[in-house]
């Protein structure tokens, strides 16, 4: 039985893990400021974080929070762990930044450090590097969170060589942002910090709607 064992959800300057808000910043903080604050609460030192674009930072943090209290990285074979992400805007926020650097021919300053982030799957790459995860990759661009697609595609992978997956939604578009990442695996384990929900469309919808953001 393939299960969802943990998830994290970030929006409205709040971080929720398994449905409970565990960190929040004032609404007045910008996304960049909020991400810095959230990073500090993890108490990790990862210099690469500071080079990432906002979407990668958001996805990176959401995955860290989903993984933090679990033994996901210990139980599963990281060569057989997939990363499947999605959003609606691809890498549009960083695309705009790169476009702005080339619009004015008299002030032309395209930067490789920006350009490299003009692909949505770079977020997958950053997660892979952080955790040494080398399995299947896919980045889908869908109008909204497609719970059926994510559940079905991860189940497809788990029916073959894949043993575990990090999957979800990571998007930054102007001032709007949201990340929702769940961990799924074949193996059963007894970690008390894990939830066990069957990996299917309705579970993904349920956990996506679990957090009470207004509190």
């Amino acid at each position: 039985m393939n299960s969802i064992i943990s998830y994290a959800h970030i929006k409205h300057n709040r971080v929720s893990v398994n449905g409970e808000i565990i960190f929040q910043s004032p609404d007045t903080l910008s996304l960049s400021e909020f991400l810095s604050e959230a990073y500090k609460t993890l108490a990790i030192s990862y210099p690469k974080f500071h080079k990432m674009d906002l979407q990668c930072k958001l996805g990176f943090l959401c995955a860290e929070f989903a993984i933090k209290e679990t033994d996901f990285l210990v139980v599963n074979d990281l060569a057989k762990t997939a990363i499947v992400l999605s959003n609606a805007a691809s890498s549009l926020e960083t695309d705009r930044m790169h476009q702005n650097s080339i619009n004015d021919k008299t002030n032309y300053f395209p930067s490789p450090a920006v350009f490299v982030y003009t692909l949505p799957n770079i977020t997958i790459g950053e997660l892979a590097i952080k955790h040494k995860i080398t399995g299947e990759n896919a980045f889908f661009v869908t109008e909204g969170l497609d719970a059926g697609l994510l559940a079905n595609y991860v189940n497809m992978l788990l029916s073959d060589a894949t043993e575990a997956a990090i999957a979800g939604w990571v998007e930054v578009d102007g001032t709007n942002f949201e990340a929702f990442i769940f961990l799924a695996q074949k193996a059963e384990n007894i970690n008390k910090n894990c939830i066990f929900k069957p990996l299917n469309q309705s579970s993904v919808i349920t956990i996506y709607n679990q957090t009470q953001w207004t509190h």
Partner: protein
Amino acid sequence: MIFTSYSNIISPLGFSTKENYEAVCSSQVAVKKMVFPFSKDPFCVAKINDQLIDQCFDALGSFNPATKLEKLSVLSINDVLIQSGIDTQDDRTLLIYSTTKGNIDILENRYKDIDAKRIYLPVFASYLQSHFKLKHAPLVLSNACISGILAIIIAKRFIEQGYYDNVLVCGGDILSEFTISGFKSFNAMSAEPSKPFDAKRTGINLGEAVATILITNKKELAQPYNAQIISGASANDANHISGPSRTGDGLFQCLEEIKTENKEEIGFISAHGTATPFNDEMESIAFDRAGLNTIPVNSLKGYYGHTLGAAGVLETILSLESMNHQRLIKSEGFETKGFSGNITMIDSHTNKSFTSFIKTASGFGGCNAAALFKKISN
């Protein structure tokens, strides 16, 4: 069994698969030197004639304004629909669209009469959905330079699991100042026609193309190539976001997973071969490590440049043509060995009897993919 079916390629070398295959076999090269307003020196790119695109699109009928990529995609998908006769309104048919940048030229304010929201890939996809009256919203995959081959692998998985019978895989990207300036900032562009795997290679040429292939479980539609997709896998190097693993780890993992036991059947490997120093070196090491060093290798980037989201689809189609004609396509631009892995390049168009081939790709974000295709034995 999952089969490859009808296909189309639109590139500077032609507007059909046949035109493209014949052009490549006669060693025509799409990359040409062009001057751009933002660069004082000319450099090589492969560009499709804009007027020709408009003429062909207008000949299809009278439609609402469309972007360049939308026109190219409509032309390519339309050709495959006509050839195959499949019903787009069928619940069992899906379109997967592979692209890195989609309608990126909308950011340049190029279009006066087109909703800027079509920069969003799902909105671009819904244009294609309404044009072809597709039952399902097209699924967009954007996974850097492996998008095309990964889309074919995903099509196979969807059909195998019973979700669909027919999956159209269309890959497309256009030349834009956006991508040209970006790759230039990386110093990854070659001013001359690129030389994949050659000792004197200096970088990529960017190209534009749209390519479409139908993947199906219906044997009666397998006729164009009588070939099936045996296996496919993707893997991440987990090493660097803009450079490949020096030891080819991710690509090696893909090659191990696609289980290429019957090496004597494999006619060739269609490599990614972008002509950057690091990429081609990495591939040679991965092929060598996987024990594939007796299998000849080509890259088609010397003809088309790097067509990004289209590349994997375009190169798979030409590889299927190559297998159909039992003829290996020369790795254009290659003269002198410029890599450390023990592999053999295809240095001239050669006749060869074989029944399968491997297609690979690698890209930014550390991603890699490989798939194994095989003739159906009758």
